[in-house]
Every structure is written in structure tokens, then in C-alpha cells.
């Protein structure tokens, strides 16, 4: 077995062909991940007991001739905002340093039912707030492709784990681009499914009208298999959708001839020249595959950042109110009154980015500002969603860059929060509309830095998204 390049299909073949057992694979993945972690800090914690217990079950099923599941024996890394019963879950925050969840997220339950083996929890920006993974209370993650660069954020640890190959696939969460942007920066596949496609029960809430759980993988096929395993209605999350979950892999047949694709001109203005060239070459590849690409307009795009950073911070200020020193492990040790306890716990516990967002969110919701900010932002959000609805009357998918630039250097942007927010422009629009979107590797810059291509489709049409991404991947992208 060659762990760094292993796919779900190869794990299955290896297990069923008795080349290795699930326990052997889990043991080797844990050893490899621990050895690599000094360089990248991708993992905050390993879960050997849980991994080996899952692996043993898979081996028993195989020995008994039973179907071991779609993810049988597959080593999985899980972003540390997704709850794992009995395995410390910090959300990248000092506040939750010792928090041991009393239950599993639904995505975790489903992943393990399908035979997945959780080897550890991955580093991330505190409460998933950030675009570089530099906001973790446990130190930044380094991009395995170039160790002096960020892996992107906020699911930076999950993207790095997959890029290293220490995990075959990973779970991340995406509120404004937190799966797609790190996938682009680390050269892996990252998927944000339709809003509601995957239950958020057990996902620590950041901005509830925008939060998603999504897969990261080395290949489009693996991402599709993982998504199918975790998707579908969950009675524990009333926002999860009842739409049937198709077998996405059946659509990975290369039949993309005649697909109509839109290339929004608003997404091409602020790219670095290398990113722009790679996207242009990627579009040529799609044309060679027989897709019809037309330039189009999504006119409300330039207002997306403003709308998003009002809605997301408003919801965050409310969701993070629960960290008050009463229930969740951390309490400031020097407070005599209840109100001091709240204020000091939060003042000492939250890092700078969380404080900034709590402040902004509280401000825009405060008396006298609600209509001017929050309500206005929700109306603009409706216009952004309408842009996509109009687009999908004419095209089957929208293709676009993921980020204006490839992975930047650690520390390069930490002192300019607005600039960091502005770099989320191309991923935020899809999040606001709630449509499925993903990053698939497009090519590399002269320095070898990966650049992702984004594909966006209609609500619940992950099938077309995966079909197109798979054909693009098999064509070798723009490289």
C-alpha cells in the first residue's frame, strides 16, 4: 500500500483482495499522520482507539462475508468543529481546549456506519472563522505543498491532511468558502454541497443560514462517495433536506459534451495573472471536452462580501453567545459576579478574529441599525441568489476561480482583516445562494502552487457538478 496516493477504491480492492487488513491500514495511517504532523500541524489530536475499533469491525465484516460499506477501512480526518463522542473537540479555540462531546454529529455516525475509520481531528481557524488557518488557538497549519505558506481556511487542517495523504478523505465545514478555498490552496478536491444536503446536527454552529459540512478528497470520485455516505434527511436537523440522494458515481461517465457553462465576467477582474491564465486554460480544456462556454454576468457579485460579513457575523454573534463560562469547560478564574464571569470568560477565551466578528455582528444587530444593515444584507442576498437562478435558466453550470490568488505566505495578510475578507469574494456568492459548489484542481503556478477551478450548479444538482469535475480531472485540468 502506498498511503499518500491511496483512494477509496484502492482501499476497497486492497481489503477485499486480502493485501492488507483495515487494522493494518489504520495503524499505518496513524503512524504516518503522526510522523508528518510536526511539519504541518494539520492534526490537533489523533483518535487511535476509535480508529482501531472501527477498523476491527470492518475486518470482521469482511471475514464474515458481509458488505463492509462504501467507506470500508478508509482513513478519514475530521475538522475539529464536528463533534465526536469521547474525542476532544476544540473548534480551534482555547475556550474548548478540554471539551469532550457527549454525542456524535450525524455525519460522523453515517461515516462510521459506512465503514469509515476516523484517525484524528484536524486544525482549523477558531470556530471556522478565517481564510488562512492562522486564527487557530493551537498554531497555524502549514501547507504541505509549500511549508512557508498557509493551507487556506478555515478547513486548512483537513485540506492539508488530504494533500499529505495522511488521510484518504476528510470532512470540513464551509460557511463562506472554508472547504473550497483550502482545497484550492492545497491542490485537492473540496465540495460544498447544497444547503441542507448534509445534516448539521453536531456541527458547531457559526452562521446557521450558511453552514455546511463538506468532503475533501484527492479525487472527484472519492468526494462523491463520501458525500453520498453522509447526505440525506436527518430528523435531528430540521434544515436537512429530504431530497433523494443519487448515486453520484453513476454520473462519472465523462458525458459532458453539449453541457452549457457560464463564465461570469465579474469573477475575472481581480485575479493574479497566473491564476487568470490557469483559469483561462482550464476553460479551454472544458471547451475541448465539448462544453459550450459563454461569458455571462452575475451583476450583484460586488455586493456579496458586504452582505456576507453582515449576515455571517450577526448569526455568529448569536451562536457564540453560548460560550459564557457556564456549560462549556472554560471559565475565567477571577470573577466575583455572574456578569463579570461572562465578560471575562469571553474576553480571555476568544481569539482576536472571533472577537472582531462578535463585535461586528453585535453592532449590525443593535438597536437602530437592524434595518440598515441586517435587513439590507438579506435583501442583497436575495439578489445574489436571483442572479444564479437567472443564470441557471441559460446554463447547466457556472465555472469560476475559487480564489483571486494561490496560497500566500504565513503572516502575509494577518494585519489586514478587510483584505482577508475581500479575498473570499468568489466563494461567498455560492454560499449565500445555498447552491452546490466545489473546487477541483486546475493547475499549478510556476512556483508549483495549486490553483482550483470552481464549479457551481443548481440546488441539489451535485450530479452535474461531479460529472463535469470528474471529466475535467480526467482530462488533467489545465496542466
Amino acid at each position, binding site marked *: 500500500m502506498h498511503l499518500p496516493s491511496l483512494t477509496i477504491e484502492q482501499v476497497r480492492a486492497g481489503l477485499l483482495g486480502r493485501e492488507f487488513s483495515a487494522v493494518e491500514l489504520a495503524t499505518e495511517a496513524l503512524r504516518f499522520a503522526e510522523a508528518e504532523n510536526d511539519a504541518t500541524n494539520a492534526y490537533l489530536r489523533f483518535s487511535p482507539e476509535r480508529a482501531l475499533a472501527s477498523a476491527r469491525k470492518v475486518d470482521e465484516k469482511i471475514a464474515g462475508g458481509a458488505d463492509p460499506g462504501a467507506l470500508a477501512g478508509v482513513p478519514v480526518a475530521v475538522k475539529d468543529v464536528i463533534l465526536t463522542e469521547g474525542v476532544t473537540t476544540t473548534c480551534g479555540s482555547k475556550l474548548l481546549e*478540554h*471539551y*469532550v462531546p*457527549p454525542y456524535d454529529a450525524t455525519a460522523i455516525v453515517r461515516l462510521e456506519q459506512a465503514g469509515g475509520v476516523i484517525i484524528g481531528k484536524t486544525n482549523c481557524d477558531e470556530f471556522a472563522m478565517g481564510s488562512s488557518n492562522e486564527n487557530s488557538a493551537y498554531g497555524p497549519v502549514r501547507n504541505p505543498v509549500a511549508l512557508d505558506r498557509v493551507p487556506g481556511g478555515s478547513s486548512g487542517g483537513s485540506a492539508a491532511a488530504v494533500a499529505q495523504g495522511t488521510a484518504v478523505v476528510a470532512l470540513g465545514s464551509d460557511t463562506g468558502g472554508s472547504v473550497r478555498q483550502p482545497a484550492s490552496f492545497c491542490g485537492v478536491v473540496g465540495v460544498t454541497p*447544497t*444547503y*441542507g444536503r448534509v445534516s448539521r446536527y453536531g456541527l458547531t454552529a457559526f452562521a446557521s*443560514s450558511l453552514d455546511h459540512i463538506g468532503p475533501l478528497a484527492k479525487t472527484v470520485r472519492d468526494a462523491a462517495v463520501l458525500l453520498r455516505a453522509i447526505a440525506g434527511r436527518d430528523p435531528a436537523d*430540521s*434544515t436537512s*433536506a*429530504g*431530497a433523494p440522494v443519487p448515486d453520484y458515481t453513476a454520473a462519472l461517465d465523462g458525458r459532458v459534451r453539449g453541457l452549457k457553462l457560464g463564465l461570469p465576467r465579474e469573477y475575472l477582474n481581480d485575479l493574479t495573472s497566473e491564476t487568470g491564465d490557469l483559469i483561462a486554460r482550464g476553460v479551454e480544456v472544458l471547451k475541448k471536452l465539448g462544453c459550450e462556454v459563454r461569458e455571462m454576468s452575475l451583476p*450583484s457579485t460586488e455586493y456579496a462580501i*458586504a*452582505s456576507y*460579513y*453582515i449576515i455571517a457575523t450577526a448569526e455568529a454573534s448569536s451562536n457564540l453567545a453560548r460560550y*459564557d463560562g*457556564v*456549560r*462549556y*469547560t*472554560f*471559565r475565567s478564574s477571577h*470573577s*466575583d459576579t*455572574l*456578569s463579570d*464571569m*461572562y*465578560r*471575562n470568560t*469571553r*474576553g*480571555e477565551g476568544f481569539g*482576536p478574529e472571533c*472577537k*472582531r466578528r462578535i*463585535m*461586528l455582528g*453585535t*453592532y449590525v444587530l*443593535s438597536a437602530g441599525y437592524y434595518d440598515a*444593515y441586517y435587513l*439590507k*444584507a*438579506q*435583501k*442583497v*442576498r*436575495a*439578489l445574489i*441568489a436571483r442572479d444564479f437562478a437567472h443564470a441557471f435558466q441559460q446554463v447547466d453550470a457556472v465555472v469560476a476561480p475559487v480564489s483571486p490568488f494561490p496560497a500566500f505566505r504565513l503572516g502575509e495578510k494577518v494585519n489586514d*482583516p*478587510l483584505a482577508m*475578507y475581500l479575498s473570499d469574494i468568489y466563494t461567498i456568492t455560492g454560499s449565500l445562494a*445555498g447552491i452546490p459548489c466545489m473546487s477541483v484542481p486546475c493547475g499549478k503556478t510556476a512556483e508549483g502552487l495549486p490553483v482550483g477551478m470552481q464549479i457551481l450548479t443548481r*440546488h*441539489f444538482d451535485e450530479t452535474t457538478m461531479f460529472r463535469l469535475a470528474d471529466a475535467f480531472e480526467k482530462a488533467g485540468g489545465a496542466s
Partner: protein
Amino acid sequence: MKITEKEVRYVAELANLNLTDAEVQKFGHDLDQILEHIDKLNQVDTSGVEPMAQVLYDAEETATLRADLPVPPLGNAAALANAPQPGAGYFKVPKVIER
């Protein structure tokens, strides 16, 4: 200036967030910049547009309902396991009422 120091301190109070003087300065500056950018929204004509509070798609009206079945609760011990100061089956906090 979109936001004054007094407003920054007021918002921190609302958020139950104890900030140092340096943080008040820093976040005042950051919020100012961000609110400046957010002013862009005033350029957009949203008359007659319904606010979008959540992602909507076609679904039956009962789609968000689940079967009303009893399930075992988490239980007192598990719920208190992460409490910084549990006691007698409760979450303990500093005294709020003077006797």
C-alpha cells in the same frame, strides 16, 4: 469615522465581551474599515425585494417535521460532564442574589 470609541465599548457590553483598551482601539479601527466597505450596499436598489433569511427550495410544507417519538435524553451526568463547576446536579455560577 463610522464608529466612535464610546460605541465600541457599548457594543462590547452588549456582547458580554471584556476588551482591553488596546483591543478597543484595534477593533474600533477594524470595524471602521469594514463598515466603510459595507456602505457599498447603499448603492443597491432593493425596493420590492423580499429579504432572504434562509435558503429556500421547493419542498412539501411538512418537510421539516419529524415523527413525534420519545427518544432517550442525554441525561444529567453527560450534560454536566463539561461544566466548569458542576454541583448537586446543576451548573454552578457566582452568587446573583444577596441574602
